[in-house]
C-alpha cells in the first residue's frame, strides 16, 4: 500500500516529467508532419513545467518563484504555437503539403 503515498515524494514527479519529456522527444523524431512535431514539442514543455513545479513545491524556499517560471513557460509556449502554426499555414498554402519529407527546397 506504499503506492498510495507516492504523491508526497519529489522523485515521483521528476520521473514522471522525464517520461513526458522523452515521449515528446520520441514524437519529435518520428513524426512526419510539422503539426505533429509541434504537438510533440508541447509535450516536452509540459514535462519541463512539471519539473519546475515539483522543485518549487518540495525544495524552493519561496514557492512562488517556480509558479512564475511555469507561467512564463506557458506564455512562451503560446507564442511558439502561434508563430509555428502560422508558418505551417503559410507553408501549406505555398507547397500544398505539411509533410516534412516534401519540404526539401533548401536541401543541398
Amino acid at each position, binding site marked *: 500500500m506504499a503506492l*498510495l503515498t507516492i504523491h508526497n515524494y519529489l522523485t515521483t514527479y521528476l520521473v514522471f516529467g522525464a517520461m*513526458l519529456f522523452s515521449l515528446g522527444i520520441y514524437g519529435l523524431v518520428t513524426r512526419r508532419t510539422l503539426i505533429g512535431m509541434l504537438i510533440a514539442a508541447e509535450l516536452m514543455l509540459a514535462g519541463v513545467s512539471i519539473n519546475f513545479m515539483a522543485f518549487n513545491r518540495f525544495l524552493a524556499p519561496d514557492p512562488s518563484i517556480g*509558479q512564475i517560471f511555469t507561467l512564463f513557460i506557458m506564455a512562451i509556449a503560446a507564442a511558439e504555437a502561434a508563430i509555428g502554426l502560422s508558418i505551417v*499555414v503559410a507553408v501549406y498554402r505555398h507547397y500544398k503539403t505539411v509533410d516534412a519529407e516534401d519540404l526539401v527546397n533548401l536541401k543541398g
Partner: protein
Amino acid sequence: MNAIQVPELLSADGMAGIIFLIMIAVTLAGGFIAATAERLIRALAGIVICFTGVAGFYYFLNSPFMAMMQILIYVGAICITISFAIMLAAPEEKRKVGPTNMLSGPIGFMVAALIFGAMAALALRTQWPVFAKTAGGSVREIGIHLLTTYSMVFELISIVLLIAIIGAIVIARGGRT
C-alpha cells in the same frame, strides 16, 4: 526524507493516493497517444487528455492557480489553435502513412529511452537539499513578485507575446490581397 504514514485505503488520504495513481495512468496514456497516433486529430485529443492530467498534478503540487492557468492556456487556447491549423493545413486524403525512414522509429525510441533512463537515474540518485520555506506561494505573493522583483520579465513577456501575435498575422496572411 522522513517517513510518511501509509493511509487506510478508504480514508481521504487513501482516496487521494488512488486518484493520483489513476491520474498518472491517464496522463501517460494521453501523452502516448499524442506521440504515436497516426491521425493528427487523435494526437490532438491525446494531448488534451495529457494537459488536463498535468493540471491535476499541479493541484497535487499545492498550486490550484497554475492548474487553472494550465487548463485555460494549454487546453483552451493552444490546443484549439492547433485544431484550427489541422483543419486548415492537413488534408487527410493526401496523407502518407508510416515513418519517413526505416530506422527513425527504433533509433528515436532508443534515444528517448536513453534520455528517460539517464534523467530518471539522476532524479533517483541525487540527494536533493531541502530548504525551509520562507513564504506560502499564494496567488497574492505571485502577483506581488510579478509586479516587483520580476516586473522587467513581465514587461518583456508581454512584448514577446505582442510581437508573436503580429508576426503570426503577418506570416499567415501573406499572399492574400
